[in-house]
C-alpha cells in the first residue's frame, strides 16, 4: 500500500521528545515511519483488543475504533481521540484504567508497553494510513420513525369497510361471516359444517364461563328448537357471574398477575386479590373497555370515579393496582438500577397489554424494527417517576373525601361567627390588661410577694385589689404568672416581669439596657433563619407551597397546608375552638385517628410497618444533594424516604430510609435528622404519617405536623419564635414610663382580639405573631376570664356547627380494606439513559405518549403526573391500537388463535393479520358499540364462523393446513384452570363463592425454597374456582404450571399449549384428581335405585355432555365388573365407581373442546 507523506518530523524524535508537540493532523495518510508504527503496533492492538466491540460488526457505546474518522467522532461519551492530546483522549483514559467508570478493555488492562504505544500514537496526531483498500463500513441504517410508521400496517387508522359480497348468501349469520366466507370463497374452499348442538353448547360454556354445562342445561338447549335458542344460551352465559371469572383469568395473564413479589423471600403484594376482584366485577359489569383502560392508567385521577353499585366504593382506582403486580427486590445494592428494571417491566406490560407494542425494546436503543424511539420509552417512564405506590383504603376514600369536603366547608362557614363570639367574650378582660399589669407591678414592688403565700393569707392582696378596684383572684393569677414569666424568655410578659421585679428604683439607663438586651435577643432569634439557612436547601416548605406540591394519601392533612390563624375545632360546646395555630404546616387532623384497616387486610412486608393508608403526607420528588435531611415537625411520627421508588425495606440494606420519632414536650417544633448520605444524587420523596393513636392516651397525642423539609450539612437553627411584635413594642417603649408600656401591651392584645373577632388574623402580615398571641390569650383563661354567661353565648353560636360536625364525624367510614394503587406525585421527567445504562443519563425527555401515535408534543402537567391525559390519548379512537389489540384478544380466546397470531406484538416482528379487513371491522364495531366487550363476544359467538364444527373439509386442510382462513373451528385443549374447575363441577365440590382473599397454595413436597408459606392451603383449594387460588411467584401451583399457566413475569396474551408427561401424571396419580373422582362417585351413587347403566349414562352426560355410545356403555359396565372382581369386594364398594370417574377425568374428551 502506498502511503502519502504528510509528516515531516522523524518518528524517533517523537518517541523521545518529552515536550508536548502539536502535530499537523494528517488527513489521508502519514509518512512511512508513522504508518509502519501504526501497522506494527497500533492496528494489531486495536484489532485484538477493541474491534470485537467497536467496529463495523458491533458498536458498543456507539463507538467504532476501526477508522480514524470514527475515533474522532467518538461514541456516547464523545470523541475517543483528540489528535496530539493523549491527556484529553478518552481512548487513553480508558486504557490507563484511570477512571473507575471507564476501564477498557473490559477484560483486563493492556500491557504497559501497549498503553505507552497508544499514547505515543495519539501524541503523533493519530496517523492512520489510507483506508481505501479496506472494506467500506456498511451504512448504518438511520432510525426513521416517520418512515417506519408509514410502512407498517398496525399504525394505520382503522378502516371501517362494509362486509364483502359472498356467493353463498345463506351461510353468514353475522356481518363478520362475510369476511371469513369471502376469504374462503376466494380460495375456493368451503367452511366446515355447523357444529351439532351438544358440541356447540359445551364450546360456548367453556369459552364464556370456563365451566361445562350441566346435563339439564344441555337438555333444555336440545329441547329448544326456536331459532333464538343458542342466542338465549349465550345471553345467559354473558349475564352469568362466572363470565367475569373466566375472562378475568385471561386478563390476569396480560398483567403478570401474582400476589407475591418473587425474588429471594417471595414477599407478599398485599391485597393484590382486590385487583383480581376488580377485574372480575368490571368484566361482569361490561365496563366500556376505554374506561377500563383509563382506570388502569389513571383510575386514581378520574374526576368521577366509578362507584360500586351497592357498596358505593371507588372502583376506578383499583385498576391502577396492575402496575404493582411485578417482581420486587428486597435489598438491591444498586437501588437505581433496580428501579430502572422495575419500571422497564411496567412499561413492557403496559405497552404490550394495551397497545400490542414492545416499547421496552427501546430501552437501550431505538427500536430495532418498530416506529418506537428511545425517547418514547423514557418519556413514558416519566409518568411512573411522577407517581408512587400506596395501599389505598378504597372502600372508605369516597365517603371520607365527601365528609372531609363537607367538614371543611362547614368549618369555613361557621368559623367567623364562632371566633367572633370567642373574641367578644374575651374583650372585656383584654381591655383591662394595662390596669392589671400596672397593679401587679405595684403589688410586686410593694412586696406583695411571693404571690402564692400572699394569696393564702389573702388580706394584703384583697386590700391591694380593692384599692385598684380590681378582682383579687385574677390579680393573684397575674402575680403567679409574672412570677414564672420572669424565668421564661418565651413568655410574652417576660420583659414586663423582669422590669417589675427589678424594683421601683431601677434607673432609666439600667432599664434601657435591660430592654436592649431583650430586644437584641428577639432580633437575633428572628433574623437567624435567613442567614443560617443559606447553606441549606429547602426541599419543601409548607409555609410557602406551590399548589402542585400538596400531595397526600387520603384527606387527613386537610385540603391545604395550615396557615397561621387557622383554628382547630373540638367538640366541646363551651370550647369549640381548641387551638389557634400560629405556624404554617401540613397538619394532621386528629379526627382521622378513627381510620383503621378492615380485619383481614394484608399489611405491607418490611419496615414500613405503620398505618399509612389514608393518613400519609407525601412530599414532592427531589434529587438528593448532600443527602442529610432535616424535617421540622411537631408530634410523634414516621417518615419513609422513597429513594428511587424502592420501598420493600426488608433486608440488610436501606433500613436507614425509615425514621420514626417521638414528639417534643408541649408539641414544640423539632428538627428530625434523617441521614440519607448513602443516596446522594438519587431521587427521593418522603412519606410522613403520624404514629398510630395510642388507645391508652387521649387522642391529642397524635397531634402531628410537618412544617418544612430541608437538606443541610448542619442542623438548622431552632425555628423562629413569634416575637417580632414584642421587639417592636419594646423598641417603641424603651424610653417611656411603665404606664405607657402597659398601654402598649394592651393595644397589641386589643388588636389581636379585634383581628380574631373579624377573622382576619391569617391575612395579616404578622399573622404568626397575632395567631400566637390569640392562642396565648385563649390558653390563659385565668388571666383573661370571660363573664359568667360567656360560655352560654359561645355554646349558642357553635351549637348548630357542633351538631353538624358530630353528625359528619359519625358518618366517617372508619374501616376499609386496602388495595395496591397509584398515588399521584408532582411531575418528574426522565432522562434518556444512554444505551439503557442508568449511570449515563443523557437528554431529559418530557412526558408524552408515543410519537408515532400522537406526535412529539409534550403533555406534561404541572399538577401531577399527567397520567389522565395519557389515558385519554391512549383511548382516543384515532389510536388504532387499543381497539384492534383488544378485538384481536377476544377473537384469540374464542378461536384459539388471533386474527393477528401474536396478540401481544403488533409490531414488525409480530405476525401479520390473517384478515386485516375483518380485524378493522371488529375494532370499529367494538368502538361503535361503546367499547362493550360483551357485545363483541356476543357478535362473534353468534356468527356462523364460531358455530362451525371441528371437522374440516379435507380439501380445506390440504389448501390451508394452518387454518389461517378459519375454515373450521380448531380443537382446543382447555387451560389448567378450566380443567380443574370442570373436575370440581362434576365432582359436586365446586364452591361458587366469588371474590375475597385468595385460597392459599397447596404445598406439595416439591414446592420448596425461601419464602415458603408456613402452612399449606387445602388440597382441593377449598373447592373454589382456580381464579381464586393464591398466585405465589416462587410457589406456583404445579397442576396449573403443568397445563401451561404462564410464569407471571410479562404479558402473556397467548399461552403455550404443551404436552408433557407431568399433565398425564397429575391427572393419573395426582391426589387432587383421585380425591375428586371419589367425590364424584359418591355423588352419582347418592341417588338410590338406579341401574348401573343409568349411572354410567349420567357420568357421561356430566363429563362430556353426551350419552355414552352402546359400546362405551358396555365397556364401562364391563370395567366396573372387572374392578369389582379385582377388589374382591361387594357391589356396595364405591371404588370401582371412583375408578370409572377417574378414567373419565383422564379422557382426552374431558380436557379438549371441539
Amino acid at each position, binding site marked *: 500500500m502506498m502511503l502519502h507523506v504528510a509528516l515531516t518530523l522523524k518518528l524517533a524524535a517523537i518517541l523521545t521528545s518529552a515536550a508536548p508537540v502539536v502535530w499537523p493532523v494528517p488527513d489521508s495518510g502519514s509518512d512511512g515511519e508513522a504508518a509502519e508504527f501504526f501497522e506494527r503496533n497500533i492496528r494489531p492492538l486495536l484489532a485484538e483488543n477493541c474491534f470485537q466491540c467497536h467496529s463495523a460488526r458491533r458498536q458498543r457505546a456507539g463507538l467504532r475504533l476501526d477508522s480514524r474518522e470514527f475515533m474522532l467522532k467518538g461514541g456516547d461519551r464523545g470523541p475517543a481521540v483528540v489528535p496530539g492530546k493523549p491527556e484529553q483522549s478518552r481512548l487513553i483514559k480508558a486504557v490507563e484504567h484511570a477512571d473507575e467508570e471507564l476501564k477498557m478493555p473490559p477484560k*483486563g488492562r493492556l500491557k504497559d508497553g501497549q498503553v505507552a504505544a497508544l499514547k505515543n500514537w495519539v501524541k503523533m496526531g493519530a496517523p492512520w494510513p489510507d483506508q481505501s483498500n479496506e472494506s467500506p463500513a456498511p451504512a448504518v441504517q438511520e432510525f426513521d420513525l416517520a418512515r417506519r410508521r408509514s410502512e407498517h400496517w398496525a399504525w394505520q387508522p382503522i378502516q371501517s369497510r362494509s362486509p364483502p359480497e359472498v356467493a353463498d348468501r345463506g351461510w353468514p349469520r353475522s356481518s363478520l361471516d362475510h369476511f371469513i366466507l369471502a376469504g374462503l370463497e376466494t380460495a375456493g374452499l368451503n367452511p366446515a359444517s355447523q357444529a351439532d348442538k351438544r358440541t356447540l353448547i359445551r364450546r360456548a360454556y367453556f369459552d364464556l364461563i370456563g365451566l361445562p354445562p350441566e346435563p339439564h342445561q344441555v337438555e333444555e338447549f336440545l329441547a329448544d328448537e326456536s331459532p333464538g335458542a343458542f342466542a338465549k344460551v349465550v345471553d345467559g352465559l354473558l349475564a352469568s357471574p362466572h363470565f367475569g371469572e373466566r375472562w378475568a383469568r385471561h386478563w390476569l395473564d396480560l398483567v403478570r398477575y401474582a400476589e407475591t413479589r418473587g425474588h429471594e*423471600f417471595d414477599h407478599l403484594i398485599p391485597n393484590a386479590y382486590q385487583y383480581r376482584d376488580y377485574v372480575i366485577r368490571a368484566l361482569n359489569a361490561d365496563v366500556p373497555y376505554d374506561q377500563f383502560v383509563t382506570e388502569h392508567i389513571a383510575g386514581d385521577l378520574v374526576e368521577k370515579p366509578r362507584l360500586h353499585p351497592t357498596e358505593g366504593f371507588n372502583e376506578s382506582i383499583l385498576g391502577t393496582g396492575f402496575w404493582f403486580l411485578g417482581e420486587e427486590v428486597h*435489598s*438491591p445494592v*444498586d437501588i437505581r438500577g433496580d428501579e430502572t428494571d422495575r419500571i422497564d417491566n411496567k412499561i413492557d406490560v403496559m405497552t404490550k397489554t394495551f397497545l400490542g407494542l414492545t416499547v421496552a425494546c427501546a430501552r437501550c436503543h431505538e427500536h430495532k424494527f418498530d416506529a418506537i424511539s428511545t425517547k418514547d420509552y423514557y418519556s413514558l417512564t416519566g409518568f411512573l417517576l411522577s407517581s408512587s405506590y400506596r395501599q389505598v383504603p378504597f372502600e372508605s376514600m369516597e365517603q371520607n373525601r365527601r365528609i372531609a369536603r363537607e367538614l371543611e366547608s362547614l368549618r369555613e362557614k361557621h368559623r367567623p361567627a364562632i371566633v367572633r363570639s370567642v373574641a367578644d367574650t374575651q374583650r372585656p378582660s383584654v381591655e383591662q390588661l394595662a390596669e392589671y399589669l400596672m397593679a401587679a407591678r405595684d403589688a410586686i414592688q410593694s412586696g406583695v410577694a411571693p404571690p402564692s403565700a400572699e394569696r393564702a393569707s389573702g388580706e394584703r392582696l384583697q386590700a391591694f385589689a380593692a384599692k385598684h378596684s380590681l378582682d383579687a383572684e385574677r390579680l393573684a393569677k397575674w402575680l403567679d404568672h409574672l412570677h414564672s414569666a420572669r424565668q421564661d424568655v418565651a413568655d410574652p410578659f417576660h420583659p414586663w416581669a423582669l422590669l417589675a421585679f427589678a424594683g421601683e428604683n431601677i434607673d432609666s439607663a439600667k432599664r434601657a439596657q435591660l430592654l436592649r438586651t431583650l430586644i437584641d435577643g428577639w432580633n437575633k432569634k428572628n433574623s437567624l433563619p435567613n442567614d443560617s439557612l443559606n447553606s441549606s436547601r429547602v426541599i419543601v416548605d409548607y409555609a410557602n407551597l406551590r399548589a402542585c406540591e400538596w400531595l397526600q394519601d387520603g384527606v387527613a392533612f386537610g385540603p391545604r397546608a395550615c396557615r397561621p390563624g387557622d383554628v382547630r375545632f373540638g367538640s366541646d360546646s363551651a370550647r369549640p375552638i381548641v387551638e389557634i395555630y400560629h405556624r404554617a404546616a401540613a397538619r394532621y387532623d386528629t379526627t382521622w385517628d378513627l381510620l383503621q384497616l378492615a380485619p383481614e387486610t394484608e399489611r405491607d412486608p418490611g419496615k414500613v410497618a405503620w398505618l399509612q393508608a389514608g393518613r400519609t403526607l407525601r412530599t414532592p420528588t427531589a434529587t438528593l444533594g448532600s443527602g442529610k435531611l432535616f424535617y421540622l415537625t411537631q408530634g410523634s411520627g414516621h417518615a419513609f424516604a422513597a429513594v428511587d421508588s424502592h420501598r420493600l425495606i426488608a433486608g440488610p440494606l436501606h433500613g436507614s430510609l425509615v425514621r420514626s420519632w417521638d414528639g417534643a414536650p408541649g408539641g414544640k417544633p423539632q428538627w428530625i435528622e434523617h441521614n440519607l448520605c448513602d443516596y446522594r444524587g438519587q431521587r427521593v420523596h418522603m412519606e410522613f404519617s403520624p404514629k398510630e393513636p395510642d388507645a391508652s392516651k387521649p387522642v391529642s397525642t397524635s397531634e402531628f405536623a410537618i412544617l418544612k423539609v430541608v437538606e443541610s450539612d448542619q442542623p438548622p437553627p431552632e425555628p423562629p419564635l413569634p416575637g417580632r411584635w414584642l421587639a417592636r413594642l419594646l423598641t417603641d417603649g424603651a424610653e417611656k414610663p411603665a404606664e405607657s408600656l402597659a398601654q402598649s401591651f394592651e393595644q397589641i392584645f386589643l388588636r389581636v382580639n379585634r383581628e380574631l373577632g373579624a377573622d382576619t388574623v391569617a391575612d395579616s402580615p404578622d399573622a404568626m405573631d397575632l395567631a400566637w398571641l390569640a392562642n396565648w390569650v385563649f390558653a390563659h383563661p385565668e388571666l383573661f376570664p370571660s363573664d359568667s354567661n360567656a360560655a352560654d353565648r359561645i355554646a349558642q353560636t357553635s351549637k348548630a356547627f357542633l351538631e353538624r360536625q358530630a353528625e359528619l364525624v359519625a358518618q366517617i367510614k372508619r374501616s376499609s380494606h386496602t388495595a395496591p394503587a397509584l398515588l399521584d406525585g408532582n411531575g418528574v421527567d426522565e432522562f434518556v439513559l444512554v444505551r439503557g445504562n442508568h449511570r449515563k443519563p443523557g437528554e431529559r425527555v418530557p412526558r408524552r405518549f408515543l410519537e408515532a401515535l400522537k406526535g412529539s408534543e409534550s403533555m406534561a402537567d404541572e399538577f401531577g403526573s399527567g397520567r389522565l391525559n395519557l389515558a385519554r390519548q391512549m383511548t382516543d379512537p384515532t389510536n388504532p391500537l387499543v381497539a384492534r389489540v383488544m378485538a384481536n384478544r377476544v377473537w384469540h380466546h374464542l378461536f384459539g388463535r388471533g386474527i393477528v397470531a401474536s396478540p401481544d406484538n403488533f409490531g414488525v416482528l409480530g405476525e401479520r393479520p390473517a384478515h386485516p379487513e375483518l380485524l378493522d371491522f371488529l375494532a370499529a364495531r367494538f368502538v361503535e358499540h361503546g367499547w362493550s366487550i360483551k357485545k363483541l363476544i356476543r357478535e362473534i359467538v353468534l356468527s356462523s364462523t364460531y358455530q362451525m364444527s371441528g371437522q374440516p373439509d379435507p380439501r380445506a386442510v390440504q389448501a390451508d393446513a394452518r387454518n389461517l382462513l378459519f375454515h373450521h373451528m380448531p*380443537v382446543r385443549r382447555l387451560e389448567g384452570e378450566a380443567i380443574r374447575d370442570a373436575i370440581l363441577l362434576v365432582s359436586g365440590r365446586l364452591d361458587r363463592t366469588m371474590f375475597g382473599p385468595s385460597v392459599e397454595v397447596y404445598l406439595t413436597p416439591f414446592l420448596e425454597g425461601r419464602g415458603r408459606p408456613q402452612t399449606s392451603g387445602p388440597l382441593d383449594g377449598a373447592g373454589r374456582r382456580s381464579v381464586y387460588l393464591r398466585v405465589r411467584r416462587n410457589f406456583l401451583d404445579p397442576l396449573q404450571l403443568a397445563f401451561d399457566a404462564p410464569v407471571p413475569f*410479562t404479558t402473556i396474551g397467548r399461552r403455550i399449549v404443551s404436552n408433557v408427561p407431568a399433565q398425564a401424571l397429575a391427572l393419573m396419580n395426582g391426589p387432587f384428581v383421585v380425591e375428586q373422582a371419589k367425590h364424584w362417585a359418591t355423588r352419582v351413587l347418592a341417588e338410590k335405585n338406579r341401574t348401573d347403566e343409568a349411572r354410567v349414562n349420567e357420568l357421561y352426560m356430566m363429563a362430556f355432555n353426551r350419552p355414552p355410545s352402546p359400546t362405551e356403555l358396555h365397556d364401562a359396565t364391563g370395567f366396573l365388573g372387572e374392578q369389582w372382581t379385582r377388589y374382591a369386594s361387594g357391589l356396595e364398594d364405591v371404588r370401582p365407581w371412583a*375408578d*370409572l370417574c377417574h378414567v373419565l377425568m383422564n379422557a*382426552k374428551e374431558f380436557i379438549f373442546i371441539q
Partner: protein
Amino acid sequence: MHCCRFAQSPLTRREMLVQCANGFGAVALTALLGDHAFGGPAWSDKSGQGTAPLLTHHPPRAANVIFLYMDGGPSQVDTFDPKPRLDREHGQPIKMKVPATQFNNVGTVMKSPWKFRQHGQSGIPVSDLLPHVATCVDDIAVVRSMVSNFSEHTNANYFLHTGNGQQGRPSMGAWATYGLGSESNNLPGFVVLNGGLIPPGGLDNFGSGFLPATFQGSIFKHGKTPVADLARTEASDELQRGKLALLRKLDQGSLERIGHIDQLESAIANYELAFRMQLAVPDLMDLAGESQTTKRLYGMESDYEPTRIFAAECLVARRLVERGVRFIELTCPNVGADRWDQHGKLEEGHRNNGRAVDQPVAGLLKDLKSRGLLESTLVIWAGEFGRTPMAQGSDGRDHNPFGFTIWLAGGGIQGGTIYGATDDYGYYAIENKVEMHDLHATMLNLLGLDHKRSTFRFGGRDMRLTDVHGEVIHEILA
C-alpha cells in the same frame, strides 16, 4: 412446576406412527427433534451441510452437561485463588476502595483459614478445604476471573442460570435441551437433582421461561418419592392397567369421533410416556446395582449425611448421563447452617459445605473418566458469585460479584488450566475477565451450538441465552 418435563416436543402424528411401528421406546433422536427446535431462521440455518441431519451448528465436544451449582457463592480466596496478601494484611483495614456490598458491614482483611497446596502435574493450587477435588486438577480448567452483575442472590442466581437478572427467562438447561433435544425417551431432558436447597429465586431458576414448558427442569428430589405424582395410586398394577385399558378405549373413540388430530394423538401418546417414566425413574434411582467401590468413591459411605446425599446426587447424575439426559443440575444439600453463604462463621460453614460436596464431586469426575464419559460430559462447578477478601463483621465474608472462581471439566475442556486472575486481594478480576454470557457461550459452543444463532422469538425479539453478549473462552478449550 418443573416436574417430569420431557424434552420431546408434542409428538406429531407421523412421529407416533414411527413409535407404534417400532414399539414404544425405540424412538430415534432425529424423530424426537421433529420440527420444534430452533424455530428462528438463524438457528435452523443448516445450509451447506448436505442432506444428513446435522443437529448442531458445528461438531459438538460435549453431549451432556452436569452443572454442580454451588448455592450461595463459595469463597474464591478460600478455594482456588490463593492470596498471600491476605495473610500479610490479616486484621488490617483493606487498602482499596470498597464498593457497596450486600450487607455493607465491612470488616478488616481476613486471611483464609485453609492452606493452599499445589496439586497434580499442572500444579494448580487448591486449598485444603477441597482435598478430593484437588486430586482432579489436571482435568479441570480453573477460571479465576469470573464476574457477575449482581450482588443479590436472587438476581445473581437468575443471571447465572438464565443470563438475565430478572425472573422469567429460560434456564440454561432449558436452552440446551431446547437446542439439542434429549437422547432419553423416558426421562426428561433437563433434570434438577435437588439435594435439599432450592436457590433464592426459587424454582424459576430451572424454568423454561418463554420456551415451551416441555423444556423446564424436572425436579428429582432426594428420598423416597423423587418425582411428583410418579407413583400410581392404585393398590395394584392390575387395577391401574384396568383403568388404562378403559382409558385407551375411550380415547380411541374420541379419535374416531373427532378425527385423528395431532393434538389429541399427542396427548394420548403422552400417557404412554408418563407410564414409561413411572418405570424408568425407580430404575434410575435404585443404586443397588452399583458396586461397593463405586459407592465408596463417591462418598456414599461417609459418616456425614450431607456428603452421602450429594454423593447419591452425583452418582445419579452419572446414571442420567448414561441414560442420555442432556442437562443435569445438582443443588447442594443442607448442611445445617446455610448454603455457601457465610456472612459469619466462614470457617465452620465453608468446612461443612466443602465436606458435603468435595468427595462426591471428585468421585463423579473420576467415575466419569474411568467410564470414558468425561470426554463427552461437560462438568461445571460454579456459584452465583464469590466472597469478599475482607471480613463481614469479624468472621464472615460478604458477596462479591467482581471477581470469583468457577471451574469446568470434561467435554472439550483443557484440564490443568488456570484462566484469568484477580487483584492482590482477590477482589476484582483484572485479567481475562469472564462474564456469565461468556460461560454460557462456551457451554453452548461445546455442545456444538453457536450462541448467536441459538435464538427463540419472543416479545418482538430473537432471544438468546447470551442476550447480545458472550464470547467463547477459547483459551480453556482442549
